[in-house]
């Protein structure tokens, strides 16, 4: 296969795949609400078609065509999936105010004629130019930011299409950021990428950069949107007067030179009056859906035997907050059926500045009796903002013929509709909301436990208590120790003996007792302090040589006085008592 053959084969394959794709035709309008001094772009798009001719426009009630048709087409090959589209665009300008209709256009695609739906555009009076007059840049260019909403009077739950448009003229645009604006009180959904194009506005042609958002008010009252602000760099052409006169520096002025200036553009705020939904006439099964919806339902098959399943399929299509749309399938007191949980499938998309959605309920009903003749009606209620009233849609009841089962056995269901995890509610959801508030502050239960003083007490008191107890335990253990007891009582005991000796010092007949008390005071003190037996105490017990000598000397004198009587100056009782008292003090210092 040579290169030519491969190319031919590839082209054939691409055309074949393209031919297999389904042709889609749609008509869209760039905005659904404009003012008299604005233009709107009406686009007919044809996807995956070989040949499409320019559309024939329908009746234009209050519009005139400024430009068009402007034709564009694109051919894409994405991993073998070939897609193409052609677009025919018209720039329209309103010539009167009110709800204007762009009539049914017709387009011939691959020999087949398609009718395109009507589109209604809300046209208001031209805006006062003083509201947000175009800011003129240093080089004479114009730049301003505007907020616009599809309606400024809405209801809770009604979708509002908001555009934030930066209009600019005679300046270049660079590094434009997302506009910043306050949207408190709304659920917000950004729609697609920002649009950049040209448009007639206030009698002049402007370039514009438009950001689109879908808002759903969450509360009633006057809600303020914005002001929106945008930071961007603009390119301003440098005038020729200030330019170099060097002939080699672009002598024929082929290239325009620019300088970049940073700008912060701020819009006027926009106030939306959001009204609460009326309580009068609110249907019992109203779940909060606001918009316009259409309900279709059918039950198949229409003739079954007892125990055979009947599938009730209900489809809700509409424009509005489809999330809040909850369908009431059948009644609550239906007998004669085993009813299974419905499988719910939901798809939403934003097109033409509106949130659209389709919600499909598929529920299996199994007749358990031959007496049932119908499936009950399906109903759904919503608030229609165009009618300013609640609307209840009903489909059914659905006639059913039930024959006797051939098998005389207990009714069983052979096949159940698989319940898709995450999409099939196990209970009937009427509406979705957060759980309510708590009436009790809940603080009293543990407040005393978390009192500052209590916590500090709990932190500090146990260690303090432990320290006190430890001291008590230590003291008690020492008190119970006999050697400790001896030591602690030793000095008091020695002093007591000295006192007794002092009483006897002048009684000659009691000199033996006097000496015995002196000896006991010193001997017992050393024995008790060193926890030694009394009989084992001698001068060698003491370690200090000077003390040892003094001890020995005093003991010899006491022994001499006891056995030899009161002779000589060395045996003076007063002297002995004083010496014993002094030695005792020295022993106390030394043996500590």
């Amino acid at each position, binding site marked *: 296969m040579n290169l030519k053959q491969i190319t031919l084969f590839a082209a054939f394959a691409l055309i074949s795949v393209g031919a297999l794709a389904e042709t889609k035709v749609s008509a869209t309008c760039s905005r659904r609400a404009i003012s008299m001094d604005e233009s709107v772009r009406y686009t007919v798009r044809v996807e995956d078609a070989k040949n499409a001719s320019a559309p024939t426009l329908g009746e234009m009630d209050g519009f005139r065509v400024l430009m068009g048709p402007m034709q564009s087409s694109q051919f894409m090959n994405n991993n073998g999936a070939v897609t193409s589209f052609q677009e025919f665009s018209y720039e329209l300008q309103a010539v009167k105010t009110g709800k204007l209709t762009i009539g049914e256009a017709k387009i011939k695609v691959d020999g087949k004629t398609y009718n395109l739906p009507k589109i209604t555009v809300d046209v208001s009076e031209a805006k006062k130019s003083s509201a947000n007059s175009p800011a003129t840049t240093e080089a004479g260019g114009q730049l301003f930011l505007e907020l616009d909403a599809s309606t400024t009077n809405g209801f809770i739950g009604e979708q509002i299409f908001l555009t934030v448009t930066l209009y600019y003229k005679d300046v270049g645009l660079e590094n434009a*950021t*997302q506009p*910043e*604006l*306050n*949207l*408190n*009180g*709304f*659920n*917000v*959904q*950004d729609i697609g990428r920002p649009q950049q194009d040209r448009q007639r506005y206030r009698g002049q042609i402007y370039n514009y950069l438009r950001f689109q958002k879908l808002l759903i008010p*969450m*509360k*009633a009252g006057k809600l303020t949107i914005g002001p929106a602000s945008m930071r961007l760099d603009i390119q301003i052409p440098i005038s020729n007067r200030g330019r170099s006169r060097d002939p080699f520096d672009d002598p024929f002025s082929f290239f325009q030179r620019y300088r970049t200036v940073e700008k912060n553009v701020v819009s006027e705020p926009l106030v939306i009056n959001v009204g609460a939904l009326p309580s009068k006439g609110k249907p019992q099964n109203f779940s909060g859906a606001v918009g316009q919806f259409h309900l279709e339902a059918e039950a198949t098959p229409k003739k079954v035997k007892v125990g055979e399943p009947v599938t009730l399929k209900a489809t809700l299509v509409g424009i509005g907050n489809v999330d809040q749309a909850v369908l009431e399938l059948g009644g609550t007191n239906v007998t004669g059926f085993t009813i299974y949980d419905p499988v719910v499938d939901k798809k939403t998309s934003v097109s033409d500045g509106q949130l659209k959605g389709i919600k499909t309920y598929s529920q299996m009903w199994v007749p358990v009796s031959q007496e049932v003749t119908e499936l009950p009606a399906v109903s759904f209620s919503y608030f229609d903002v165009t009618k300013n009233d609640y609307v209840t849609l009903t489909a059914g009841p659905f006639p059913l013929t039930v024959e006797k089962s051939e098998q005389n056995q207990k009714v069983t269901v052979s096949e159940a509709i698989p319940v898709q995890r995450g999409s099939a509610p196990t209970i009937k959801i009427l509406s*979705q909301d*957060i*759980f*309510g*508030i*708590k*009436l*009790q*502050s*809940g*603080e*009293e239960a*543990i*407040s*005393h*436990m*978390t*009192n*500052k003083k209590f*916590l500090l007490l*709990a*932190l500090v*008191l*146990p*260690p303090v*208590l*432990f320290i006190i*107890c*430890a001291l*008590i*335990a230590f003291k008690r253990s020492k008190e119970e120790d006999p050697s400790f007891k001896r030591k602690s009582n030793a000095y008091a005991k020695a002093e007591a003996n000295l006192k007794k000796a002092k009483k006897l010092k002048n009684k000659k007949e009691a000199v033996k007792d006097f000496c015995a008390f002196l000896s006991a005071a010193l001997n017992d003190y050393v024995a008790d302090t060193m926890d030694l037996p009394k009989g084992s105490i001698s001068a060698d017990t003491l370690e200090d040589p000077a003390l040892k000598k003094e001890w020995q000397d005093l003991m010899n004198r006491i022994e001499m006085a006891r056995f030899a009587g009161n002779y000589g100056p060395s045996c003076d009782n007063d002297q002995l008592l004083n010496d014993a008292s002094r030695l005792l003090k020295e022993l106390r210092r030394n043996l500590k």
Partner: protein
Amino acid sequence: MKKLFAILAFATLAQASSFEAAKYFAQGNTAYTNQNYQEAVELYKRSQKEGLNSPALYYNLANACYKSGDLGSAIANYRKAELFDPRDPDCAANLSRALSQTEDSISKKEVPPALRSFFFLYFYLGLKEQVILALAFWVVFWLALIVLILSKNESVKSAMKKFSLAFFIITLLFLGSALYKYYDAAHQGVIISEQAKVHAGPDASYTEIFILKNGSEVKVTKKEGSFVKILVHQEEGESQAGWLEASQIETIL
């Protein structure tokens, strides 16, 4: 030690609420019931200023913020309520609902169920409860030590040795758990402005690197001047870090 005191100080904030606080709380409830949600937010905030710091207050404040369309503050207050009462099913349900309405696909790193079961006390008990339990075991630990030193019975002494060790470990566990919970909450933030521009540095002059929408949960890692450094985990892809103005974020603690 500084953190320990901070935890204790925070726990002690929840003192017996004043009469004024209770009055504002009740008035907030009335405003909420009458669907005056913005008024309810103000009244609940006054009640908090007067010293009420209960999970019920944060929960009600979150509900009022949610109803008045302030998704970011609602999520922050649900998180506060969850911090003190993680077992409240209403709070968990409302938080889940509020999180489902955020625009950014940011994920909080989920703890594996096995780890959740193992550390069930951490996930099951609120911060205040953990502090109180840590203190209770602290007291019991010292009491066991006191019995140990005063008792003459050897078997009692031996038992008290084991008990005191066990109580000390439990005290450390609860204290550690409370510290971690406190640290985690102090570094957790929610975007409260409609959208927050995240810059490459702690100043508005740095390049804008991405934008976070109202209600996105982020980790606050640093503060410098009027800017904080944040870290976000995207559901798909890597984590992103950047700086944004501190006023655009509400931290849980």
